């Protein structure tokens, strides 16, 4: 092949790779959109977290498909190499390297870090609670206290819907972690420290209907760790008041 022809052939491969990348990205995005990634979510925090996850998913598709398509095309095109035939001594390519560096840096700073920050800000917004609940972790169970009424429960965490709730979390023995999968909140319980996390439940429900409505210990705390969980029940405000007063059992 003359220099001109090989240049032409090369351009054809580049164009084809680009087209394949576009196709793979479109297909990938469609697949990502079609799949339901998240388990049952029932809080304001779940919406924020799931949105953040979805955004990262949308962004990953072109990155993954680029590496796979470019690598795959190179492998198919170059297959059947033999030990005494060298490839071209290409050591650098200004446009490819420059474009790569600019794009990946922009991706990291603008499209990954910035939404990470704003998601975090959103989680921290609305810092004034309507209701405070003390959560105490002890090997291997959870104790919930409602300081305003003095009511203390174990075995089930009862919460009013659409209220801003702050959990004050403590532990006496080792580190545990207060996790409610349906709410997408998790906060370690550290001996000697009170940690806090906030949530606004947005849907009624209980563990019997949704496995994700549970308080699960998420930090290894010894032999009973796997079983250190209780159900969560989200009720209307009226039901909650009734329950708090002692009538709701």
């Amino acid at each position, binding site marked *: 092949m003359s220099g001109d022809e090989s240049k032409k052939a090369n351009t054809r491969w580049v164009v084809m790779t680009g087209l394949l990348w576009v196709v793979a990205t479109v297909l990938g995005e469609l697949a990502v959109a079609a799949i339901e990634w998240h388990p049952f979510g029932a809080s304001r925090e779940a919406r924020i977290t799931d949105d953040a996850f979805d955004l990262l998913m949308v962004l990953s598709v072109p990155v993954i498909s680029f590496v796979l398509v*470019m690598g795959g095309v190179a492998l198919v095109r170059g297959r059947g*190499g033999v030990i005494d035939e060298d490839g*071209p001594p290409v050591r650098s390519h200004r446009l*490819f*390297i420059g474009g790569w560096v600019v794009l990946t840096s922009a991706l*990291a700073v603008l499209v990954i*870090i910035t939404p990470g920050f704003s998601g975090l800000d959103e989680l921290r917004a609305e810092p004034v609670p309507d209701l405070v609940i003390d959560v105490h972790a002890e090997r291997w169970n959870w104790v919930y206290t409602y300081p305003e009424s003095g009511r203390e429960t174990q075995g089930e965490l009862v919460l009013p819907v659409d209220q801003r709730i702050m959990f004050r979390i403590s532990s006496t023995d080792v580190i545990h972690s207060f*996790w409610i999968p349906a709410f*997408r909140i998790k906060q370690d319980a*550290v001996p000697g420290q009170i940690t806090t996390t906030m949530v606004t439940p947005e849907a009624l429900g209980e563990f019997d209907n949704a496995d994700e409505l549970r308080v699960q210990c998420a930090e290894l705390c010894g032999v009973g760790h796997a079983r250190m969980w209780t159900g969560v029940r989200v009720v209307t405000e009226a039901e909650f008041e009734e329950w708090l007063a002692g009538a709701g059992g």
Partner: protein
Amino acid sequence: MNILRGLVGGALGYVVGAGLMMAIRSSAGGRAWEVESVTAGAWLFALSGWLLGVGVWRYWARGWFGRDVAPYTATGGRRYLDFDTDHKVIGIQYLVTFLGMFFMAGLFAMLMRWELMGNGEDIVGPDQYNSIMSLHGTMMVFVAVAATVGAFGNYVVPIMIGADDMAFPKLNAMSYWLVPPVLIALTASFLAGGYDTGWTGYAPLSVQSDVGGLFFNLAFFTLGLSSIVGAINIVVTVVTMRAEGMTWTRMPIFVWSIFVTAILSFIFTQFIGLAMLMVVLDRTAGTIFFDPAAGGSPLLYQHVFWFYSHPAVYIMILPAFGITLELVSTFTRKPLFGYKWAVGALLGIMSLSAVVWAHHMFTSGMAEALRKPFLASTELISIPTGLIFLCALGTLWLGKIRFEVPMLFALGVLFNFLIGGITGVFLADVPVDIQLQDTYFVVAHFHYVILGGGIFGLFGATYYWFPKMTGRSMSDRLGKVHFWWMMIGFNATFLPMFILGMQGMNRRVADYSPDLESANFAVSMGGFFLGTSFVIFLFNFIWSWARGPAAPADPWGSLTLEWQIPSPPPHENFTSPPLVLSDPYGYGDPDSVHADLARDGAKTVVEK
């Protein structure tokens, strides 16, 4: 023989140390014998006794007192059981020891997957499960940290830079002989009933754990000692022992990756030693580093621990990056694309790795203000990591590709690390991490990085350098079967784990809710499939070593120096010191010559 001497020395050391500890204890008015504090103190004496007995005294320390050191007489296979100072012997010692540890820890993983195959606690109780899980994690971390650096950092790096050995051969032997005490401590831990803290050993759980936990602390501490000694050696070797003309920009990228890894290991390993030591002191000496009731802080442990253990992730993965780029260049017969960018990427990852540790602690209760900086620094690591992919893709493009077994593993590293890296971006995003922290999503992520990246790299390196190390070829067909079996098994095991984590399965549990059963069953099947793939490797490895056909000096047509000398290389590596003329990536350039290996004698110039 020397192992026997080492064991006797270790036992004597233990007795002396225990006596001393008991004297101290009773003079302080306590009960003389208490297994933990006596053992913790005696460990350092036992370690010294072991080292002296195993060879330090006879071959080295006698000289410090003006005596003649004993002549080294071991030959043939016995050299591998002795205090041998040849970097090639030490490299093989590391490879075999850590492959053995890898398979042992893999058996533990099989046991875990057996338990998790069905809902409920069927095979082992939660207590035993925690012990098995902890040992699996600990041993695999040890393998990932030490196997590639120890085996190929020792065997290949000195030859690649044109040296006849490491800078400190005796120190090198010592760093290897610090590994058997690690195995002894792990065995002691197992026999004492294990420990239930995972490899992370978070305080205060670890302070309260049974005596098995103490042996875990001592094992990690001792491995850290070995790592630091080995790292100093590699750094000094690369800085001072390069052949004439082997400038920094002519070094093979694998040498760069091991050099950068050694710097990380040299700087950060002391912090894991410190974390372990503080736990041991809290357990035995009444210190209160992590006891909140007395003013200590449990979070302090996590900061010190991750200050090492995040950089440790790069200690595990950077050598695999180096191998991958080296192999991609060899098997495309093209120069490494963007060499300086690859070096810059390694240095960038090295620097950033120091400032990201708290991304493991987003839900830990650390100050809220720390979340954003650590989110940002962690996401920034994607830039230098991306450069590694840039260099790999740029090299593959227009390459004349040979799908040899090592190349398949290099491509495996790229594919697996792509998934491992991108899911790392998810976990660095604080809101997402709050949900996924401590779930199987994290388990899947770090297995993609460490097993899919680091260990695939280790196997690629093993297939690649096996002919050089043994002078024999491995079976190509079995190698390919092993690769595809392992690759499919790996992805079948760990891809569904992401889903399990998103569905709410937390890590380190022997039991889970019933709705997760079918996915767990699938993961277990994948795990068993993955596990059996190593039978093929083991057979190929052992059989080829004993009976494989003789390998030529340069079976892959690679240009780096180790391939220009016989397989296996002679004791002093080169007959005369090489003169390096250009970098080892002169593919496609007929005039390029990497090195002149015979400048004193007949001019046999190494051409491509």
